């Protein structure tokens, strides 16, 4: 194998620190032999899964929470059948969600249906039909890759997925098709897009000698614990390496899963308290509203503008952590002892470390699909340039592409050029982030080490988080303001017009 899974790594840990910190020792309940023994009993499992369900409820609908926790329990209870259970849970949830009102797929399909005045089939039915077709397509593609290990799909699965994405985009263009054909092509594009980030991991794993069978590969395409565009837990290969069927190991993993879910709840509570204090009590507007006010010629006082920006950045970091902990907590309840998705980003001492800690699985997919292929291909005789280019491809190109594709429906709304144009501020963000992370990476490879003193740590904190806060103006994910408006807003915070 196994290229794309080459970066199967975890956020940095600091074991020596964890061992000496009394609070962390107290929180490390999975080290209590009594608790581990209890977690292996029937009543212990009942308690853990009960707590997990209650912890998931504030974040997911009651049905989804029940399905996820039940599926996690079933994977644990019938480990020898886990491919089948995962398959049923993951695809069952995908199809169930697609068939219900107000789901992401149907919402995106509706844009083109409205443009084509197509009312014969419901968007939900189109989404389910397209998903079933795509399931069959992915299965056939997997068989093709197995039968032709030297074929293009087997060697370059991500490039092939992008080619299919582009082909569907062309087929669903109003200049090419109209009516039912365009609606069908668009439906396929909408449901296909998330799998661009999952399927290459399956093909990469299939190249290995110890690969999981295709059924397991299919089972973790958008697994039930993270139904989105990002492979939390990566592919079957990574999951296999983080699964132990031993009862004691499983019990520890479940305790760590419950801890993470409870931590997500604590962060959710913190987020709600902050929202109450800043948004309700202090009436601090959101960043998008602050830029609106600036554009309309009624800018907020500079100090308030900074408060909005800093609070907005912090809140975003909290959101990332909450969802990452939910997804990984659920995966741990299914027995996969995965590294956390967000790992103390405030402790980062370099930009590279921040990129690694802040959104671990996002970084991992970018490393797998962009960094590693670039690293092994270009500038082999120039180590620094090689490292910088590979980092730039991941943090810049990959980052921008992932976010652009997550909002693929905007091509239907704004047209291709309009969608690219409204994406310009995020492109700028990706470019600057990539330069920053790339330089940080090159410095590290040249031997630069951040100071471990208190002053050094304070300096690193201020540098990294100033960088992140300033860039937040361009990366808030909305498309409502142009790059120029955002830049002028940022300059206004320094008193510059």
């Amino acid at each position, binding site marked *: *194998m*196994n*290229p794309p*899974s*080459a*970066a*199967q*790594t*975890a*956020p*940095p*840990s*600091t*074991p*020596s*620190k964890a061992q000496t910190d009394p609070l962390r020792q107290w929180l490390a309940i999975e080290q209590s032999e009594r608790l581990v023994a209890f977690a292996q009993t029937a009543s212990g499992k009942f308690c853990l899964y009960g707590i997990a369900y209650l912890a998931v409820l504030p974040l997911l609908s009651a049905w989804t929470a029940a399905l996820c926790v039940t599926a996690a329990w079933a994977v644990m209870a019938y480990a020898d059948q886990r491919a089948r259970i995962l398959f049923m849970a993951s695809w069952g949830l995908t199809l169930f969600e697609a068939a219900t009102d107000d789901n992401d797929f149907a919402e995106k399909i509706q844009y083109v249906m409205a443009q084509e005045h197509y009312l014969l089939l419901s968007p939900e039915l189109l989404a389910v039909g397209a998903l079933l077709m795509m399931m069959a397509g992915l299965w056939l593609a997997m068989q093709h890759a197995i039968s032709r290990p030297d074929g293009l799909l087997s*060697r370059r699965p991500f490039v092939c997925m992008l080619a299919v994405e582009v082909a569907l985009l062309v087929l669903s263009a109003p200049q090419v098709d109209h009516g039912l054909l365009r609606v069908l092509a668009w439906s396929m594009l909408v449901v296909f897009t998330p799998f661009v980030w999952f399927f290459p991991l399956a093909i990469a794993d299939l*190249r*290995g000698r110890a690969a999981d069978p295709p059924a397991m590969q299919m089972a973790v395409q958008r697994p039930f614990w993270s139904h989105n565009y990002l492979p939390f837990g990566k592919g079957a290969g990574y999951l296999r*390496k*983080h699964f132990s069927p031993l009862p004691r190991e499983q019990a520890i993993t479940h305790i760590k899963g419950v801890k993470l879910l409870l931590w997500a709840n604590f962060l959710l509570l913190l987020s709600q308290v902050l929202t109450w204090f800043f948004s309700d009590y202090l009436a601090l507007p959101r960043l998008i509203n602050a830029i609106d006010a600036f554009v309309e010629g009624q800018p907020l006082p500079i100090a308030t503008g900074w408060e909005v920006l800093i609070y907005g950045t912090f809140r975003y970091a909290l959101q990332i952590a909450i969802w990452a902990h939910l997804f990984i907590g659920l995966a741990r309840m299914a027995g996969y002892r995965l*590294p956390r998705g967000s790992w103390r980003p405030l402790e980062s001492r370099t930009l*590279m470390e921040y990129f*690694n800690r802040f959104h671990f699985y996002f*970084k*991992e997919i970018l*490393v797998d699909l962009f*960094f*590693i*292929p670039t*690293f*092994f*291909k270009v500038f*082999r005789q120039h*180590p620094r340039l*090689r*490292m910088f280019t*590979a*980092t730039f491809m991941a943090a810049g190109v990959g980052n921008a592409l992932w976010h652009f594709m997550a909002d693929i429906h905007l091509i239907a709304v704004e047209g291709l050029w309009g969608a690219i144009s409204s994406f310009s501020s995020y492109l700028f963000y990706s470019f600057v982030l990539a330069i920053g992370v790339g330089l940080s*990476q090159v410095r*590290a*490879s040249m031997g630069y*080490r951040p100071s471990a003193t208190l002053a050094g740590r304070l300096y690193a904190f201020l540098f990294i988080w100033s960088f992140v806060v300033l860039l937040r103006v361009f990366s808030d994910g909305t498309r409502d303001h142009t790059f120029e408006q955002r830049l002028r807003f940022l300059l206004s915070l320094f008193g510059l017009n």
Partner: protein
Amino acid sequence: MNREVFDTLRAYLQEALRLHGDTQELADGDSLFLSGRLDSFSMMNLILFLETAFALTFSDLEFDVEKVDSLNAIAALVHAKS
């Protein structure tokens, strides 16, 4: 296995771990990357080091984290590729 190669690799890995704030002892079979002691960027730095110090070449299609996940595995890889 050449003892000198083993010692060179150990010194490199211990320094990489130390820079990650990990001062625990490194046993020959300890997992480095899958366990989370080192990250994916450290892995690429390790590849650079292996290419430079031992004149090895890698391609992305043959690359597998398990081949570099422990001191023993890396030493075996160097031995096999040299």
